[in-house]
């Protein structure tokens, strides 16, 4: 699935990623943990093609295809989805309009037929119900005036609607109370399948109680400095990142 | 509620315009009126070299051909430029060597104003308290500059403009008029012809000026104008903080103050320029008298990453016409403007700033707080512009007006010119009156109306006050209190 090798990237000319190597096979969930400023969000932006995040060395492929050569929307069409740490407000664009435009643009890019309006609405009702999202909210401008928790739920809703293959969750637990966290996690877990993979970026172990990872990696100083099973997350929760910060 | 108590005590302890006394000091005057001979007289009085006189005469010629600007929202009878003295100076023995030789009456004036001119007085203060060097300008001349020697040890030149013209002609020639050209505007042009004195500062590369520099301007003589000229140059990587304070006696005639201030910053240099302007505002009932404060202040941020910050507390003058500006030429240079302008009685103020973004990634920030009371008029006028080359320019402007009373006026006139697609300008402005709910809330807790107003107004201007150097902030807060006395009820 995703293969990242010796990735170096700069932001405003400042090196942030310094030789990051990572493999996430299909069907697996990997967690990336690390102290603040380690480069966690940078990794998610580099993989999704945000402007200003420049790759200076190394590469990243999805099923063998070079990701870095593609535009942001082309990567999305290939199935790369980023759940933003701070989802954007899009004034004037109703959530449903936004998602339908995105879904059809992806389908078009893949040479698939567009989804019909009735089919789209049926799908939206189904997924909204599963995530306990009031359907009326979907008619409002996307994320405008939504609470932090509502925004995160809207990210997972979009994820369910767009049905991506490779999911990146960037600090999805931040700003969520325990009930919202459960709903969001259930939404994510429902997406787990043998042909999908996930990268769960988080500072705290808490989220991993809900979304169980197959592997845990520690990102510090722009590199993966340790990898292990789920027990590594618990160890980090107990001992903190100090050890790795020094190693970096 | 310690702050409230302090404010209350301040209010009780102050008269309306405490700097309104005048002093009988033997003065030298130029003959009344303005012509080329007066210009020559001023130049001769200051023992200026020929090039300076030539420059003054040239400015005078140009000024004759110019018209007084009329676009500001201020109303006043036409100024008779022939009915004023353009030079007034305390009589002095030739070449004052030490403070002991300064006329004791003048020293008394500065003592009354609370400005320390004797270095030992400053040193005798509380241990660890910040020291600041003072240039004292009395009518048309600088009477004394303190701490010159100590500053010279680190290479900082701090002296009167007259002295700089004599002692540092190469620097003056290079920079004077390079930021505000002679014919920039009517009042600046007049200043270029007849400027009297002011401060000159040069901070060499890499030097962080070890103390605050300050100038106290005092207009004492009757019927005289003050035309000070200040030039501050911060060379590469240097830093200086400069303060100016202004007062004048209460007089029935209007007096003209047309100053020009030029700032230059080279790469990575920073100048912080603070003003507490408390010229006599005229009679609050009749509007008679007071200073016409027509000032041109501009900074040229020539160097990359250089920075200029203007902070002003404007409470005095009958008419204020003043727009401290920044020309953001250097790449990544930044300008700031923090202003409190208070008008009461019959005062009129038209003040603001210009932020001219010429270089890439330049930044500017404007915070303006205007308070109008009595029958006064208070206008914020500002320009923010980004030229085609100013890619990535950013501006944020917050412009708030507060009205106290039924007969005052508050105006906001921003000009915004964005000439490229990579500049980002944000501007917010509000006009409100003092909230009766808040006033009632404070009074219900036991504050008098006046105290409650003080408290709320202090809150309104807090963002700007905190930009001032500490000792000035205290003074400014007191000024705010006095300026608004009697504005409610």
């Amino acid at each position, binding site marked *: 699935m995703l293969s990242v090798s010796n990735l170096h990237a700069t932001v405003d000319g400042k090196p942030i990623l310094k030789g990051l190597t990572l493999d996430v096979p299909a069907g697996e969930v990997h967690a990336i943990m690390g102290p603040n400023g380690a480069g966690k969000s940078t990794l998610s932006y580099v993989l999704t093609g945000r402007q200003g995040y420049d790759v200076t060395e190394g590469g990243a492929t999805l099923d063998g295809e070079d990701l870095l050569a593609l535009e942001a929307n082309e990567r999305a069409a290939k199935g790369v989805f980023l759940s933003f740490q701070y989802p954007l407000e899009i004034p004037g664009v109703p959530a449903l309009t936004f998602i339908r435009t995105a879904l059809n643009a992806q389908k078009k890019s893949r040479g698939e037929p567009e989804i019909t309006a009735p089919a789209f609405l049926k799908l939206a009702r189904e997924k909204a119900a599963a995530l306990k999202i009031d359907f009326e909210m979907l008619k409002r401008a996307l994320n405008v005036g939504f609470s932090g928790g509502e925004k995160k739920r809207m990210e997972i809703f979009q994820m369910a609607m767009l049905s991506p293959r490779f999911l990146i969750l960037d600090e999805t637990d931040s700003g969520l109370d325990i009930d919202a966290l459960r709903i969001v996690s259930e939404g994510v877990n429902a997406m787990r399948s043998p042909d999908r993979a996930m990268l769960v970026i988080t500072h705290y172990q808490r989220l991993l109680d809900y979304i169980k990872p197959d592997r845990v990696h520690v990102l510090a100083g722009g590199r993966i400095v340790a990898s292990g099973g789920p027990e590594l997350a618990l160890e980090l929760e107990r001992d903190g990142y100090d050890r790795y910060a020094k190693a970096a | 509620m310690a702050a409230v108590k302090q404010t209350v005590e301040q209010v009780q302890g102050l008269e309306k315009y405490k700097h309104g006394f005048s002093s009988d000091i033997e003065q030298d005057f130029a003959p009344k009126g303005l012509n080329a001979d007066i210009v020559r007289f001023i130049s001769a009085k200051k023992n200026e070299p020929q090039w300076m006189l030539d420059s003054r005469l040239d400015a005078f010629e140009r000024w004759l051909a110019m018209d007084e600007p009329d676009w500001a929202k201020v109303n006043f009878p036409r100024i008779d430029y022939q009915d004023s003295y353009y030079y007034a100076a305390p009589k002095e023995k030739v070449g004052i060597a030490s403070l002991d030789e300064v006329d004791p009456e003048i020293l008394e004036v500065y003592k009354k104003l609370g400005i320390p001119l004797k270095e030992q007085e400053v040193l005798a203060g509380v241990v660890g308290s910040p020291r600041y060097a003072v240039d004292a300008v009395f009518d048309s001349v600088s009477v004394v500059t303190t701490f010159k020697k100590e500053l010279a040890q680190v290479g900082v030149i701090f002296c009167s403009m007259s002295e700089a013209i004599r002692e540092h002609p190469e620097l003056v020639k290079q920079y004077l008029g390079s930021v505000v050209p002679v014919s920039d505007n009517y009042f600046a042009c007049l200043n270029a012809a007849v400027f009297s004195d002011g401060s000159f500062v040069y901070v060499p590369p890499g030097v962080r000026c070890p103390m605050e520099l300050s100038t106290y301007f005092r207009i004492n003589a009757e019927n005289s104008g003050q035309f000070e000229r200040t030039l501050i140059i911060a060379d590469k990587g240097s830093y200086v903080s400069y303060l100016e304070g202004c007062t004048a006696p209460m007089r029935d005639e209007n007096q003209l103050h047309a100053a020009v201030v030029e700032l230059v910053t080279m790469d990575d240099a920073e100048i912080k320029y603070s003003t507490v302007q408390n010229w006599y505002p005229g009679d609050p009932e009749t509007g008679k008298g007071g200073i016409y404060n027509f000032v041109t202040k501009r900074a040229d941020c020539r160097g990359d990453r250089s920075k200029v910050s203007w902070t002003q507390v404007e409470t005095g003058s009958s008419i204020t016409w003043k727009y401290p500006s920044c020309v953001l030429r250097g790449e990544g240079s930044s300008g700031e403007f923090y202003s409190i302008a208070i008008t009461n009685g019959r005062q009129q103020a038209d003040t603001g700033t210009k932020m001219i973004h010429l270089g890439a990634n330049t930044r500017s920030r404007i915070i303006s707080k205007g308070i109008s009371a009595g029958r006064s008029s208070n206008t914020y006028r500002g320009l923010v512009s980004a030229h085609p080359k100013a890619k990535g320019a950013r501006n944020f402007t917050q412009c708030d007006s507060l009205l106290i009373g039924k007969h005052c006026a508050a105006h906001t006139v921003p000009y915004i010119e964005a000439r490229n697609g990579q500049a980002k300008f944000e501007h917010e*402005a509000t006009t409100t009156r003092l909230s009766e709910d808040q006033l009632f809330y404070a009074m219900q807790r036991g504050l008098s109306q006046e105290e409650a107003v003080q408290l709320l107004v202090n809150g309104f201007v807090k963002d700007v006050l905190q930009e001032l150097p500490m000792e000035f902030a205290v003074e400014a807060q007191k000024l705010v209190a006095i300026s608004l006395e009697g504005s409610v009820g």
Partner: protein
Amino acid sequence: MSVAAAIRTRDVGELPSRRDEDWRWTDLRGLIRVLPDASEAFTGTLSPGPFDRLAADHHVLVNGGDARIDVAAGKKTLVALRLVSRGVGAHASRVTINLGAGARLRLLESYESDGASVCQTALTITLAEGAALERIVLAQDHEDAVSVSQAEVRLSPTADFGQTIVASGARRQRLETRVVHPGGRASARMDGVYLVADKRHTDHTTVVTHEGVDGTTSQLIKGVARDQARAVFQGKIIVSEGADRTDARMGHHALILSDRAEVDAKPELEIYADDVSCAHGNTVGAMDEDALFYARQRGIPEPEARAMLTEAFIGQVIDRIWFEDARKVVRKWAAERLRV
């Protein structure tokens, strides 16, 4: 000095210049060396106007002339008013509109020029007590035209005035509205949209003078400038002495979508009363790159994402149009000019 006088006398000295504070960014004196001859009378057939489908009552002025629209007290009507310029001449038009007490008028106004004409329209609009006027203006001028529209609006207490001026610019295009607002629970909405491209210019100038207590004004202007186009917004709200409890809000937000486009703004407040609540906000800048990336991360290609975001940006003004059918026409009109 006025544009109308200049057209009448053919004296360019009558044209406003950059020295006139109100015209500092729309200098006609410096632009026009010689005024063209008076426009000839038009005899051909006109192509349909943008609102033809919606209105029953039509007023069409071609190359100048006078029109009068009276709505009697208590009556309700829908009128299309077309100010058409054919050819390259100069001409002026005058329109008088009176609404009686409680009358309601939906005015669908359009400016349509097809060449390098110089034209001016003066509108005098009066609303009696309780009257309501919604004025929707589409200014679709020719790129070589100089087009000036100047409306003087006088409101009575409890009247409702709403306008949305949508413009695509011209060589010089000025859309000016001056409202005398009596307070007295009368309300004014002074909206506008501009979409300028190429080397076009547009100027939205509004002045609202509050003369009595309890008046409200709300204004939202949004625009998009691309290529080497230039847009000007001058909005002024005056609150006279004694006009207490005035509530006035003004917002101007512009997107500059090219390196060489220009937006000039002067949102002005002139306040002589203390019991007021007035505010203005102004933003000028490029499109929000974060929002653009967000849309693209969801799979929307860049041109489409940009179009979607600009339409949404403008749409917030169009949504404020009261008359739904006109809202649809305007939305379509704007979309056609954004998707290029």
